[in-house]
């Protein structure tokens, strides 16, 4: 059961500011999603090894070699999507 407090906490973890209206709206919605997961409880998993990964692959490696074109973007390219930059750095609000 997801409470209003849980929802506020999840909002904080995602850095989302939730209004009173949002909380009213999403608390039952998330609960119904969670309820749907209980369907899984009915599946008989006796003797089935746990799934740690959904892909049937393993051991995909790359060699320790610099990728073509030097591997990297230019500084200009790297910063081209950033709303704010300074002296070649990305600039973000302070967080502590």
């Amino acid at each position, binding site marked *: 059961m997801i409470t209003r407090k849980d929802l506020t*906490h999840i909002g*904080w*973890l*995602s*850095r989302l500011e939730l209004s009173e209206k949002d909380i009213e709206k999403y608390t039952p919605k998330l609960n119904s999603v969670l309820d749907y997961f209980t369907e899984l409880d009915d599946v008989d998993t006796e003797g089935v090894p746990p799934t*740690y*990964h*959904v*892909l049937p*692959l*393993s*051991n*995909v*490696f*790359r*060699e*320790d*070699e*610099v*990728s*073509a074109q*030097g*591997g*990297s*973007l*230019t*500084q200009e390219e*790297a*910063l081209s999507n950033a709303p704010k930059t*300074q*002296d*070649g*750095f*990305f*600039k*973000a*609000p*302070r*967080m*502590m």
Partner: protein
Amino acid sequence: MYDNPDGVMIGLEVHVQLNKLKTKVFCGCVTDYHNDPPNSHVCPVCLGLPGSMPVINKKAVEAAIKIGLALNCKVEEHTQFYRKNYYYPDLPKGFQITQYDFPISSGGYVMIEGEDGELRVGITRAHMEEDPGRLVHEGTIDKSKYTLIDYNRSGMALIEIVSDPDMRSPKEARRYLDKLRNIVGYLDVFDGNLEGAMRVDANISIMGGQRAEIKNISSFKGAERALLFEIVRQKNVLRRGGVVVQETRHFDEAREITLSMRTKEEAHDYRYFPEPDLVPLKISGWAPAIKETLPELPDARRMRFVEQYGIKDDHAKALTSELKLAIFYEDVAKKADPKTAAVWVCDVLKGELNYRDLTVEAFKKEHMLSVLELLAGRKITEDGAVDIIRTLLDKGGSPEEIIKEKGLVIVAGDIVETAALEAIVENPQAAADYQAGKVKALNSLVGVVMKKTKGGADARKVREVLIAILSDGFYPPIEREKIEKTIIKIGDVMVEVSKPIANLLKKMGYV
């Protein structure tokens, strides 16, 4: 027995950056960014741009296994990656790729010198993860308005080594860190001299309180200081009847204090889940093969040095503290007297290197061998040898050139002998005083000889010669029982010397 009166428990999380790899852990960006402008070694993968996919660097996995083995860990056959979710500007993706369940290695230990003898520090786990970007704050972290971010470091391969809370004092923590750097340094997976190569977070509690996690420690010395401060702080809280709460604290290096970070931000809820973009690793068989390639590690090498070369354990410990130094010593010891070599490499050379902030690569093995050879042949004095080593480090050249230039060559034995006889003849009173039991009288004679040889003589040898002449009446002091002694008169003073010396003095026209 160390009784740990405050019940201090310290556990450390050490991040080792695999900066000797050519590329980052999940992309082909180069790792050699330390002197380059910010954000000049980044790509869609390490910038976390949509649609990019990580692929793991095989060498990074091998390095992780090397570290796990060197820390006596069990290396797993199945290992995989997880997403650790949190929002912070150093993470462009909003999560860090790290390990959670199924870390690559766990359950090891490291032996350190504890407060009361050997201490076994357990290694909970040593797992792989990616380095976040580097944040630059204008001014101090609690006052700056915004954060500048450089993602060059983002995606560098890290090994996080988590210890059990087995250390009982800041000193033990420091020794653990030194030992860890020592061991990992042997594996050729990282360069400890580069900025950010090893970073520490510390967990510490004392009896009656909860633990604090200290972040932002930037050096081993800083770790020790932060822990010392934290013990005092926690004791004070308890003494005033307060409660030591579990929290994350920030070490302020300049002020040498720790500051509480606001509680809201430390409500960590990482929501780990398996990283869908990276498939699991099945690496059974890797560890035994890699084990074959591990070099002899510091503890084993130290024991072997003591046994094989008969040197002191202190010397062996210092000499094995760095792989390059150990190799340097061993190469020298094979061609010179190993004990003397240990003294000169460890007590002299290492000190001079540390003083200049240099590594052993700054000094040639051949030069150490010549210095040792010159010493063994009594061609130079010990002071002269130190002078040569210093000059080689400061100005370069060769030992032979320096000897010539500085006139360091030792004055030959017969010259010392003549000077000693002259000194006795010119100062018969001092000689007689010495023979009468006034040991200090010898010093003035040594001084005269040193003056006569312009400081080129080895003071120890001068003493030896003077004592031999004045006690045995002969130099070199051989076949003592056969020596016939005679009393000669120099000026008004009677001095007892051997007949050969008396004859020599007559021949020289002194008597």
